[in-house]
């Protein structure tokens, strides 16, 4: 049973991650705020509750691995790595700047803590499978997490990988889908309908969980349940809101996929995020 204190702590971290996402994309005048904000609670739970890792030793062989398959959500991952101590928080403002290690889409060669370079959607789950298979070969018990976008699940390779995970009974792998319902050209279900989404994963041989992707307690409980599943991979379909935490981004999810907030928007967004008192978190 996770303590209320811990839940508060992680919720507060998620809020910090959101502030960083707004600030860094504004500073870069570029980036993907919407899909980063929707994943903030998921990433906070993973990096600050679940993942066995050592920021001072990013190459630690027994570490859990996290693959950000939706590579454009780089801002939320960078924010988490900075808060975890992989690099100074101040460095976040160099996002997308020429010469920066904070590339527009995550780059494993530039930045310690990035397990796989992504950006071209659909490849991360395959890579995560490779890591899970390596763990088995090496008789190691690290866990592999992979965060996908829902739009990303329109890519065929995702389903090739899903077949692989089930075929090899990769119970050391947990996928999470950031089901924020929107892609670039419109609602996911209007462009290429994913429904029945949970059924699809089930049909592919996965243990399927659903939860509110913004409820830290629910995320923790669900991830812990998923970890106990033996002999099949688990997927958590996390229901989220694109732009979560910033009212005008939540209201216009199609506008903030790949558009950074202006200076004025940054002020307004941070005002909303920073005003949350402890008792509200």
């Amino acid at each position, binding site marked *: 049973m996770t303590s209320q204190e811990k839940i508060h702590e992680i919720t507060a971290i998620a809020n910090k991650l959101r502030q960083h996402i707004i600030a860094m994309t504004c500073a870069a005048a570029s980036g993907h705020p919407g899909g980063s904000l929707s994943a903030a609670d998921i990433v906070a739970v993973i990096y600050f509750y679940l993942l066995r890792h050592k920021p001072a030793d990013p190459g630690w062989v027994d570490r859990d691995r996290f693959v950000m398959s939706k590579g454009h959500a780089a801002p939320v991952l960078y924010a988490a790595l900075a808060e975890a101590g992989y690099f100074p928080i101040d460095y976040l403002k160099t996002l997308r700047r020429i010469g920066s290690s904070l590339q527009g889409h995550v780059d494993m060669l530039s930045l310690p803590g990035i397990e796989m370079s*992504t950006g071209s959607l659909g*490849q991360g789950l*395959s890579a995560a*499978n*490779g*890591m899970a298979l*390596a*763990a088995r070969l090496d008789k190691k018990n690290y866990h592999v997490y992979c965060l996908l976008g829902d739009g990303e699940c329109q890519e065929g*390779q995702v389903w090739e990988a899903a077949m692989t995970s089930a075929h090899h009974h990769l119970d050391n792998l947990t996928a999470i889908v950031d089901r924020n319902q929107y892609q670039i050209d419109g609602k996911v279900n209007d462009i290429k309908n994913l429904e029945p989404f949970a059924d699809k994963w089930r049909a592919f041989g996965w243990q399927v969980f659903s939860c509110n992707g913004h409820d830290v307690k629910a995320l923790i409980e669900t991830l812990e349940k998923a970890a106990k599943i033996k002999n099949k991979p688990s997927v958590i379909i996390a229901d989220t809101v694109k732009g979560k935490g910033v009212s005008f981004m939540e209201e216009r999810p199609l506008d903030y996929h790949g558009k950074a907030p202006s200076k004025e928007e940054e002020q307004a967004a941070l005002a909303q995020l920073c005003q949350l008192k402890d008792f509200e978190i």
Partner: protein
Amino acid sequence: MTEKIATRDIYGKTLVELGKADPHIVVLDADLAGSTKTVDFAKVFPERFFDMGIAEQDMISTAAGLAACGKIVFASTFAVFGSGRAWDQVRMSVAYTRLNVKIVVTHGGITTGEDGASHQANEDIAIMRALPNMTVIVPADAVQTTQVIRAAAKFYGPMYIRLSRAKTEVIYGDRDLDYQIGRGIVLREGDDVTIFAAGIMVAQALEAAERLQTEGISCEVIDLHTIKPLDKELIIRSAEKTGAVITAEEHSIIGGLGGAVAEVLVENCCVPMARVGIRDTFGESGKPDELLVKYGLTPKDIVFAAQNVIKRKR
């Protein structure tokens, strides 16, 4: 009659040898293990072999994940699929990440034969060499293939190694072969024209050189097995010596060995050059030998090209 061995057969055997020596070696295939011969490895090391099924994109990115965890990964399929179907995955999961994945494909070129155009890779060298961080090698025979695969296991980084389906003549049987990635091999010295060749065209080039000799034309024949990184110094040195160049490849004349050599010559040593290869067309079904004739990949074609390029010398 020179011995003929299929380079893919040697690949399978060499993988087993390497697998015995190094437990980090892992092999992937995409439902073609019987053809690519990774089945040999699968029989001895089933726990280190993963048949990914008919899913080449999945195979390549999975290979990347394994490599990220310290494995030395060999991923095999037919050349068309390994280079074409999974190009974006090769680009982003392997080349961009510089991970230690060796994409060893078989059935390169038109000698794939009866399966026809869909299975004949004539553009793969072009699209693989365009990728940064990629090493591209086309071994000429079975002996060289063993050396190449062994060198590949020692070399850290992305590689594309292209083998053929058909049995090919052994060239390096008696020759001393101290194989080095990126170092071209002068098989025959000459003064009138240089023939740069790779893969099965090396044997064709040597045969062409013999015929040209009878006409009093002295050919230098160089095996440029490594298309990337290209042995630029050797290309320039030989071109300066002979003053005329032919390239011969089992590949389109666009973007492959011919394109690569032309790029070097035009920037360093402009000499008349002609490319022997598939002339920007798809292949078709047929017996390998028939296809080589129809598509202009025989010693006769090289002879003809050489005679004409020499006429263009100043």
